[in-house]
Every structure is written in structure tokens, then in C-alpha cells.
């Protein structure tokens, strides 16, 4: 019994630590955003602004939108690579999607929203295959390839819109269904969050239960040993970029509808860095071969709840970046020095 417990403690130590941090930040925010006029302390906590329906809904939508592309980034990081182009891709995807709806660009015909989504997803898959081909087949460094993406895709989006905003209200065909699908609610939960739960389940299956995941972890750790085992490492590595790109497109759909106007110069700015931060905080190693879905989700959520705390408690928003930086640094530091071992050691001493 004891050994089983310590086995799980050890196996999920990172996730456990993160969950504790998450609880701490959430409780802190609840405590300081409590309703001081409520009768009784407990009641004041329940009526805190953090736990208000509006805040929770907003927070879950954010977790959903950020979580989807962070999971894709997580897979790429586990493969031992990196994708710096995610934020710019989201600007490009949002722009292209709105052009598809409105048909206001000379080269892009206006079509109904269902085929528009399909076209966009296909486009994102092609972009992913392109990245994967350059990185896994041509053997260009992922950093360089996606850095070019970071510059190029946003630039492309800005060029297409002549550096102005683009909306979707003058869509050629009906968009009621689209709005319902992307900004609506299901069972009281934002659609983005539902989509995120679904994506999480799929990625969990891929990473932790399927052969693809085993191969991805193996090649992230030791590509040579993986290829000596007969694994087609190029295909597996390339697939990571394809999945990352498709998830960025799904997320981009939600963001585009959420903001209603896509301004390519700022839309999705730095999102790739949030995704990397979330994944690293969640226990992914930039050397590859390490990471879990639960960790990535927790890492992303912690960053968003921190942001939420800063907003709700009226802390200086510039300072929030410092807090975020310190949390990531601290999280990786704890892992680096294996501080949880102190805990398990004292446990086994007392046992």
C-alpha cells in the first residue's frame, strides 16, 4: 500500500505540485476578491468575484482557447522540437477564415461557414505538413523553420488585410449556426471549453495510450535508438507539427469569433510563448521526451488563473508578467533540484 502510494506520488509529482500551486492561487484570489458585505466568512468567499458565474465562464473559455493550442505545442516539445509560429499562425488562420466568410479578398471566394471551417483545417494541415517536411525530412532546425513562420505568417496576414482589422459581419452566407457553435454554451459551459475537453481526451489517447505517443516519447528522448528500433521517426516527428498546426487552427476559430475583429498585427501575439511556458511549467522538457497531458493542462491553467488574479485584484497588470515569469522560473527550479524528493524522503523515514 505504502509503496503504491509513493509510486504514484513520484510518478505524478509534477502534476501534484502544480495542482497545489493552482489551488493556492485560486484560494488567494477568492480570499482577496471576497464579498465583504456578505454575512459570514464562508458566504463572503462563495460570493467572491472569482467564483462569480461571469468570471468562471470567462476563465473556462480562456482555458479552453489557450489549452487547445498549448496541447499541440506540448506534443511538438515532447518530440524534441519547438513551434514558434503558433501565434502568427493564429493571426493568419483568423484572417483567412474571415476572408473565406466574407469573400472580400480577391483570391479567396466567399463560402458558407461549414466548408470554410473544413478549408481552414485543411489549410492548417498543409502548413503543418510543410513544417514537418522541412524539420523532419530536410532536417532544418525547428527553431529556424518556425521562427521564419513567426515572422512570415503574421506578415502575410497583415499584407492580406493591408494592415487593418477584418471582421466577419458582412459574411456572404448565414453565420448564426457558426456563432452558436463557437461562442455559445453547452450545458452552461462555453463551447471553447467543451471543445478543449474533447481535444484533451483525444490528445490524452494519442500521447498516453497509443503507439504514436510511445514513438513520440521515444524519439524525443533518443531519436537514434528509435530509428534503430525500426520506427519511422520522420513521419512521427512530422505528425507532431501537423497536429500542432491543426489545433492552432481550431483555437484560432474560437479566438477569431471571440474577438470578432482580427487585427493581424496584434492578434495572437506571443501566444506561442504562453504555450511554451504552460508546457514547460507543466513538466515538458525542452530536450524532449518528457511531458503529460495533465501537466500541460495544469501548466496552462495556472498561467491563466494567475492572469485572472491580477485582473480581479487590480494588481498592476505590467507586474503580472513578472509574477508569471517568477512562477515559471520557480516551477522549473523546483523540478531541477528535485525538491519533491525531500518530501518523499521524510515520508519513507517516518514509515
Amino acid at each position, binding site marked *: 500500500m505504502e509503496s503504491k502510494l509513493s509510486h504514484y506520488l513520484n510518478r505524478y509529482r509534477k502534476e501534484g505540485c502544480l495542482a497545489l500551486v493552482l489551488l493556492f492561487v485560486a484560494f488567494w484570489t477568492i480570499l482577496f476578491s471576497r464579498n465583504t458585505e456578505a454575512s459570514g466568512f464562508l458566504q463572503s468567499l462563495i460570493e467572491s468575484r472569482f467564483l462569480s458565474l461571469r468570471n468562471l465562464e470567462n476563465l473556462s473559455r480562456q482555458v479552453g482557447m489557450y489549452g487547445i493550442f498549448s496541447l499541440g505545442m506540448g506534443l511538438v516539445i515532447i518530440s524534441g522540437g519547438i513551434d514558434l509560429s503558433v501565434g502568427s499562425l493564429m493571426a493568419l488562420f483568423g484572417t483567412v477564415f474571415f476572408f473565406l466568410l466574407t469573400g472580400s479578398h480577391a483570391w479567396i471566394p466567399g463560402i458558407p461557414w461549414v466548408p470554410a471551417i473544413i478549408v481552414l483545417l485543411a489549410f492548417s494541415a498543409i502548413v503543418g505538413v510543410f513544417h514537418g517536411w522541412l524539420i523532419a525530412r530536410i532536417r532544418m532546425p525547428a527553431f529556424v523553420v518556425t521562427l521564419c513562420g513567426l515572422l512570415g505568417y503574421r506578415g502575410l496576414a497583415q499584407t492580406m488585410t493591408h494592415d487593418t482589422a477584418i471582421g466577419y459581419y458582412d459574411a456572404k452566407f448565414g453565420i448564426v449556426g457558426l456563432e452558436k457553435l463557437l461562442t455559445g454554451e453547452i450545458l452552461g459551459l462555453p463551447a471553447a471549453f467543451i471543445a478543449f475537453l474533447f481535444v484533451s481526451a483525444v490528445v490524452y*489517447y494519442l500521447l498516453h*495510450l*497509443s*503507439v*504514436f505517443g*510511445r*514513438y513520440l*516519447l*521515444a524519439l524525443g*528522448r*533518443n531519436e*537514434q*535508438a*528509435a*530509428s*534503430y*528500433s*525500426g*520506427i*519511422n521517426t520522420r513521419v512521427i516527428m512530422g505528425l507532431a507539427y501537423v497536429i500542432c498546426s491543426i489545433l492552432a487552427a481550431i483555437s484560432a476559430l474560437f479566438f477569431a469569433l471571440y474577438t470578432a475583429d482580427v487585427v493581424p498585427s496584434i492578434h495572437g501575439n506571443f501566444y506561442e510563448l504562453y504555450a511554451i511556458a504552460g508546457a514547460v511549467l507543466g513538466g515538458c522538457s525542452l530536450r524532449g*521526451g*518528457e511531458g503529460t497531458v495533465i501537466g500541460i493542462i495544469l501548466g496552462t491553467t495556472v498561467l491563466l488563473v494567475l492572469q485572472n488574479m491580477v485582473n480581479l485584484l487590480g494588481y498592476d497588470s505590467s507586474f503580472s508578467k513578472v509574477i508569471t515569469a517568477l512562477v515559471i522560473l520557480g516551477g522549473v527550479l523546483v523540478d531541477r533540484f528535485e525538491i519533491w524528493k525531500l518530501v518523499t524522503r521524510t515520508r519513507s523515514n517516518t514509515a
Partner: protein
Amino acid sequence: MPLLHLKKISKSFGPVQALDQVELEVEKGEVLGLIGENGAGKSTLMNILGGMFAPSAGQILLDGSSVSIHDAKAAERLGISFVHQELNLLDNIDIAGNIFLGREPTRLGCIDQKRLHDLSRPLLENLGLSIDPFTSVALLTNGQKQLVEIAKALSIDAKILILDEPTSSLTLQETDTLLKLVKKLRQQGMAIIFISHRLAEIEAIADRVIALRDGKNAGWLGHDEINRNAMISIMIGRELDEVYPKTKPPVEDVVLSVRDFSTRRWPNGRATFEIKSGEILGMAGLVGAGRSELAQGLFGVDDSPAGLVEIESQSIPRGDVGRCIANGVFLAPEDRKSSGLVLEMTIRENMTLNSMKRFTRYLRIDFASERENAEVWLREFGIKAPSSEQVVGNLSGGNQQKVVLAKWMTLKPKVMIFDEPTRGIDMGAREEIYKAIAKLTESGCAILMISSDMEELLGMSHRIAVMREGGIAGILDKEAFSEEAIMQLAVREDLATSS
């Protein structure tokens, strides 16, 4: 009184006792041959002397007084110089810069190139190396690099010189030069500890031989007692015949046929050979002869410019690992840690990495049958691990190699290529690996065993092919087996006779 006396040195790494009360003495002007199997503790002992490790117990006496050597610098100050097995020179710096790396003479804060040159030249000349000290190291041959390493070692006014496998990457001629140099240094009064697997060298040069076995003193031989058989029997503690399992003569059916096969390293080399069912073909050759490249080419992880490979008369394409695996051609690579295993993964995961299809249903991994598979092999090979969930990186070299073996045995090999199957593995585990290889022959598997360990080649093989410059220089039948015959084929005749 001996110049150096290591007294009851012990060293343990965690639970592993690497050295147990080892004694070693060396005199001024003496060449001491230090021999022992892989993992016997030679390197650990020398690393203690070189200041890399601190001993857990024991004493180091230099000129009769006790000294402590806590780092490499301290060893240097005491006049102990260590030439490591692998070359440690920087290719992007010239010879003189390498010799005085970290101790450069300076003038006004800049490196004094002229003094550097003047200090290096006599050192190189003493070693018979007439090359300008400002030559880039990248232009040197392995033999010349080895000499530069020795020049570097001597540049600190060494009294004791440790040479760890100094000839392992040298040609015969270069080896000859090196042995002459060692004799010259002995005349100059240097105490030399010479570690080598090549017993002929030890026989030619050592004044005394000390053998280690399993971290303990296994015995020693005086000058007149040094001969091959005596060294082997104190090294392994019994006669050679008992180590290598008997195998039946092979069946006549040819399993693997290779014709005019070349590799990227040796595009003009043409390797042609056949292996029969149940046959072990040993593959000998010098370092750089292209043996590992051949193995990687046959397995398809490396491209091959030309050649024909047939398995049971069916030709298979070159450079396609997937097809090789599908046809039952497997490789246990030379470098277990970087190519054979994913060290951070568990035993269970490593054992199925090449055969996932058998352990999946609709892309979903069947963890239970994976575990079952791992446990069967853990028992079969007696792999010492608490469970199949153990991370492979924590296992000993021998147990790691058994995991590699198990990984491929799951798929029933037709042709199994072993590249240095027992490198860095202790005697006990080696015997078990030999047994596993012998057992494979019984199932009709054809085995290609690449090895730099002569004893192993001579003891295990049915025939031995010798490689040179990417081609097969000759194939020896059992009656013709001898170390000399192999070396003669491995070295180009014109080079061997020219010196």
C-alpha cells in the same frame, strides 16, 4: 621502496563494490602491464590515481609518503600523468596549444606563441615526431594524435605515466612506434602503467603484469612468466574453454548472402560473404575498417551505395530498416546507450519499441501483454531488476545488453547482427550473453558477430571474416584461427612490411 604503492584501495559506487582492497606497486624505470576483463576495475583504479575519483578506503604512497589526490591538478603536481583511452585533443587548436592547454605561457596577458613553440618542439622531438608544433591537430593521423597526447602528458615533468589502451585506435605500424617510445621512456627512468587488451603488446613490453578481476587483485606475473596463456588464466580465473559455450556446426542452408556491399564510409569497399543457418560468423578488423558501418548498412539504418543482400534467397532493398526488420534482420548496435536503448524509458517500453504491432489493438497499446512479455524475458535472461517498470538507464551494462537481446528475440530473428556485444560488460553477464547467442544458433538463426575482442572472436565463431577498408580481406576457417592470422589480414601488407 617502490616509487608508487597503492595500498588496499577500495572504491564503491552506491551498492556496487568496484574495487576491493587492491594492491599495486610500480618502480622507477619499470613498465607495469595492467590487465583484466572489462569491468574488472582497471579504469576505476587508474581514475583514482589520476584524481578523478576519491577512494573509499586505502592509501596512496608516493616515494614512501602518503599522498591524497583529490583532483586531476593534484595528480599533475605529483608527477602522475594520464593518457586516456579516447583521444582528448581539440581539433580546432594547433599541436602546441593542445600540449599546453590551460598552462599557456603568456606575455602581457597574451599567449606567447614563440615560447609555446620552443617548449613544444623538444617534447615532440623526444617522441620522434618531427612536425611543426603549429600544425593543426585536425591534420594528424590517429597515431600522431596519440603521440601528441603523450607529449602533453610528459610536458608536466611526469614521473609516472599511465597509458590506458593507447593502441586501440592505432595501426600496427603506429603501435610499433608507440611501443618503441615506451621502451625509450623506460630507459629515461619513467614508471609506466600500461593498460591493454592486446596481450601480445603486454608480452612484448611489460616487465611485470598485474591482473584485476571483479575489482580484486587476481594475481601477478614476473618478467619471465609473462605469456599469453598465463595472462588469460589469471585474468579470467580459469581456462578459456569453459567460458565459451559449444555450438554445433552450422547447417548447409545459406540464410544471409551479401554481395559487393559497400557503405557510405567506404563507397569502394566490396564486402561479399554468406552466413549459414546456425552459423556464427565473427567479424574482425581494425578500428575504422568499416565493420560498424557494414552492420548499420545491412540493417538499413545507414544508406549503402551498392550491393546485394539476400535473406533465404529473397533479395531485400538497401537502406530500409522497416523492410529489414520485417525480414528478420536485426542489429544489436555497438552503442547500446545511444542507439540500442532509450535509457529513460522502462524495461517494458524498451522491449516492445520495435514490435509495437504485436502489443496493440486499434493503435491502442495493450499494457498488460507488454508487461507479460517483459516479465517472461526478465526471467529467461535473469535480468537483475526489481520490476519491468525499472528505467533501463539504471541497469548495469550487462543487463542493458540483455534487454537489447530480449527486444529482438521477441521478433524471432533470422539474421542477428551483434556489434561489440560484450563491450563494457562484466564476465558473469558476458557468459550469459554468449549462452544466449549459442542458443540462437540452435533455432537456425544466422549470426554476424562484430568484435574487437580477439578471445571472444576465436572462442565463439565458426568462421572469422576480417575487414579492411570496407571490404572483406579474407575469411578464416576454424582450423586457421589465430590472432596473428587475423592481424595479418586486418593490416595492409605493404604498410606492415614497410617499417
